[in-house]
């Protein structure tokens, strides 16, 4: 979490992007000069399936207010099936976080292809807006790491 000069809350957002589709999508949105919020920190992963629940939790621990996972569309995975496994895993994890009382909006999965620069920018904008509305992550933060 950060606070800008006007003391308004600027969330820190971590986006895990698969190397083959979503990272390329982010790249495309950049080359097309489409704007998306600068408070989104992209972490490139070889496949959405590389992201295990620990990654998501650690992002929150280290100060993220929202975490989004982006990968290839179902059926388009570079490794054929990785995103299918990721989907089940994240569904169950998000459900568990919800069960523990963590706000539902703080986590999201979106499928963004290499051609969807526009979608990437739109997704990030809407996610950033949603997290900004939710406010700082307090329920899943590590007090030792609070800035």
């Amino acid at each position: 979490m950060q606070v800008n000069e006007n003391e308004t809350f600027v969330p820190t957002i971590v986006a895990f992007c698969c190397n083959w589709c979503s990272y390329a999508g982010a790249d495309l949105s950049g080359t097309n000069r489409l704007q998306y919020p600068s408070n989104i920190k992209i972490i490139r992963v070889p496949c959405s399936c590389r992201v295990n629940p620990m990654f998501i939790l650690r992002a929150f621990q280290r100060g993220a207010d929202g975490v989004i996972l982006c990968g290839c569309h179902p059926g388009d995975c570079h490794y054929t099936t990785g995103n299918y496994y990721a989907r089940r895993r994240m569904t169950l994890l998000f459900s568990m976080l919800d069960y523990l009382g963590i706000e539902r909006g703080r986590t999201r999965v979106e499928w963004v292809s290499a051609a969807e620069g526009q979608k990437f920018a739109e997704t990030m904008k809407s996610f950033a807006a949603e997290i900004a509305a939710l406010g700082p992550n307090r329920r899943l933060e590590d007090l030792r790491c609070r800035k």
Partner: protein
Amino acid sequence: MQEMMKNRAKALLADGTVSRVIGWRRGEFSYDVTPAVFETAEELERDFVFDAFCGANVSKYLIRESAKDGGRILAFLKPCDAFSFNQLLAEHRVRRENVYLIGIPCAGKADIDRIKKAGIDGVLGIAEDGEDFVVSTVYGEERVKQADVLAERCLACKSKRHPVYDELLGEEGEDLPDDVRFAGVAKLETMTAEERFDFWRSELSKCIRCNACRNVCPACTCENCVFDNPDSGISQKTAADPFEENMYHIIRAFHVAGRCTDCGECSRVCPEHIPLHLLNRKFIKDIDELYGTYRAGEDDGTKNPLTSYTEGDAEASVVRERGRA
């Protein structure tokens, strides 16, 4: 039952079918039994016990015991232990050929903590009398209904059936409906996020990170746990921050999701009485609802739901949509 088991064990030892027997050893009081391996008829006669307090799931010990040379080991498995064993079999953690399984019926196990919760202390002896336990104590005799001091996991028993065995002692039972089992989870689901957060904070903040839930769990069989691996970056040994408490319990439950047979050992052993089964059962309930009913340990062949998929699986957004309904 105890005598039947003892006699059968002695017979199998005598005819050489097995060389050892894993069961429960008598304790100091009438409730503190310890899992133990018996090698002779004399040991069995002296120390073997099977009663309402023999709740400990011995299936995890069979990983170590079945790896040993020197003959088969006889294990008496209650239905829930048999599910755990079958799951271990599916994961190739036990050597089936080294284990001789006798399925034993289970009418539910008593929880000494619930007897003590009823205000009974200074226990000297516990005897079964019809539907009651007669508890003799330093402070006089007390009587409780057996049904009132059943362990939580037994109240929510999923099955009285043994999915795996070599022989059965007594009658085979049947599966039980899941609604009781999931009632606790369902109740939490109807609460608001704030209520749930407060509930789990008050429960998980009691955690002393003794690792009993992990170490007793028949599904937790990693050679080197991520929480013990200094290179993992998360082995902190202690819940130094509420985040650590949440993380430990989320990851512990997640790691056994799809493999947890809901034997309830985690909740049984928790010295702080944290209802850990509510975490495990949440995953089971979600899996059932999203990917079709799945029962870990049902057989040793079906792929577990986290290592399989269908193209039409629900998107992760189902969590948010479900909330809106």
